[in-house]
């Protein structure tokens, strides 16, 4: 049995999801030969450290660590000093400066700890730097959960489609926008009403700017461009137009002529813009779903679809990244 000691940084919706899936899947993970132990959790209120592993039952009922923290160590101090080999970084994203996640990731990688994250900001701001830091320290940086939520994309390309040259990726990478556009098309709702509904249902943030202006999608395009296409691009290299100008009339006209309107991100074109998608296209998925078409030289076009967000769903992508680190090592015979 291989013990994997994990420091979790960030205890919001995704952080709870990570604790939840790791405790729920304990038996299955042990069958894979892995004993995943969360030995520390840090959020903005404090840090909880338990050398023998934190049990899900003990912490899942608490929204923050305020009442259960047993240390005042900062996230960086925890990463440095707690005996762990892998850091799961799930703090809130900031795509302008990448903090605080960027500092956490640098600290972890520099200390020879693997990083698994759903946090886009640091990767948008400094992917190449982080990748180099990981390589120099002989550890891995895994970020499947940053793009397309639970929809498998990066691991699919890097593992299953290995051998193919990836010509391009095009898709719907934001569930909030997709929900709004779907409701506008189905119910002829104006934008404002569809947005309000998405907010009521928890699909959109109180400040929905990142989603509806295309910022979130553009961040994902930057990550794909850098990670899959080695492009070394920044957020400002992406041409971005959101969905706020879309009207129910435009959606009705599209429908009449056999199309839906979707917010589509494209790499290596580096564009995010509303586009007409034929109703029968596999990309024409509704509700909060994400979908991506991967254009390859050998396998043709592969289209995947899946839930774009949600704590447990995102945690599932994080879990698969964690497991893949140790499986890779097995293949490389350095387990």
């Amino acid at each position, binding site marked *: 049995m291989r013990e994997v000691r994990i420091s979790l940084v960030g205890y919001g919706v995704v952080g709870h999801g990570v604790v939840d899936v790791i405790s729920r899947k304990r038996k299955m993970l042990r069958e894979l030969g892995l004993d995943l132990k969360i030995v520390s959790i840090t959020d903005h209120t404090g840090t909880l450290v338990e050398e023998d592993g934190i049990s899900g039952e003990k912490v899942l009922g608490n929204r923050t660590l305020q009442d259960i923290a047993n240390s005042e160590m900062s996230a960086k101090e925890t990463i440095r000093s707690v005996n762990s080999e892998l850091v799961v970084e799930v703090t809130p994203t900031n795509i302008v400066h990448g903090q605080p996640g960027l500092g956490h990731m640098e600290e972890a990688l520099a200390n020879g700890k693997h990083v698994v994250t759903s946090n886009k900001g640091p990767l948008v701001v400094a992917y190449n730097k982080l990748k180099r830091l990981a390589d120099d320290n002989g550890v891995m940086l895994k970020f499947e959960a940053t793009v397309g939520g639970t929809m498998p994309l990066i691991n699919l390309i890097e593992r299953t489609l290995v051998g193919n040259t990836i010509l391009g990726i095009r898709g719907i990478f934001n569930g909030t926008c997709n929900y709004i556009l779907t409701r506008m098309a189905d119910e002829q709702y104006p934008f404002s009403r569809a947005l309000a509904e998405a907010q009521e249902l928890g699909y959109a943030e109180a400040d929905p700017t990142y989603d509806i202006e295309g910022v979130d999608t553009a961040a994902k395009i930057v990550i794909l461009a850098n990670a899959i296409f080695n492009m070394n691009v920044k957020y400002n290299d992406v041409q971005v137009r959101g969905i706020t*100008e*879309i009207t129910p009339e435009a959606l009705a*006209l599209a429908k009449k002529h056999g199309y839906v309107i979707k917010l589509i991100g494209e790499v290596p074109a580096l564009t995010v813009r509303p*586009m007409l998608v034929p109703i029968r296209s596999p990309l024409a998925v509704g509700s909060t779903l994400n979908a991506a078409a991967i254009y390859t030289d050998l396998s043709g076009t592969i289209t995947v679809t899946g839930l774009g967000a949600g704590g447990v769903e995102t945690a599932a992508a994080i879990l698969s990244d964690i497991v893949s680190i140790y499986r890779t090592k097995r293949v490389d015979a350095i387990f």
Partner: protein
Amino acid sequence: MRLSMELELQDVPGQLLLALQPIRDARGNIISVVHHRDRKTPRGTVPVRLIVEMDRSKLEGVKRDLEKSGIVVVRAGEERFIEEVSVILVGHVLDSDLGDTVSRIDSTGYAEVMDLSLSMPGVDEPSSAYMKIRATGKEEMQKALKILRDVGAQKKLLVIEPVEDGL
């Protein structure tokens, strides 16, 4: 062979049937008929574009028959436009001179707007237009879309293009 014909019809009932008769007689298979009622010529005639699958040798005979019926044959020959793309414009489509937007494409000679429908929810609210653009080839289509994008930027219109098949 696929042929295209541009005709001008009198704006009176029964003209379209009259125009289709010679093609039927020549055993031509009509692929599409686009009736531009909204774009009357200065002479008051209505332009019609036909795409027909027909033996080329019968074209001259059909032209003669059409002209005998008083129909003007502007052009007839192999189909020029082979690419088609749907586009939606959102914004003040009409107030920003839709005629000008269309003619910027039409005046290229390699592309044209062949179908146009408008949706206007109310004064001062953004309207939407659907248009189908045809062009003589893929490259020409890209040029036409570039023109439309530039016009869109200039007139503050959102131009919604279709995703292409493949990349």
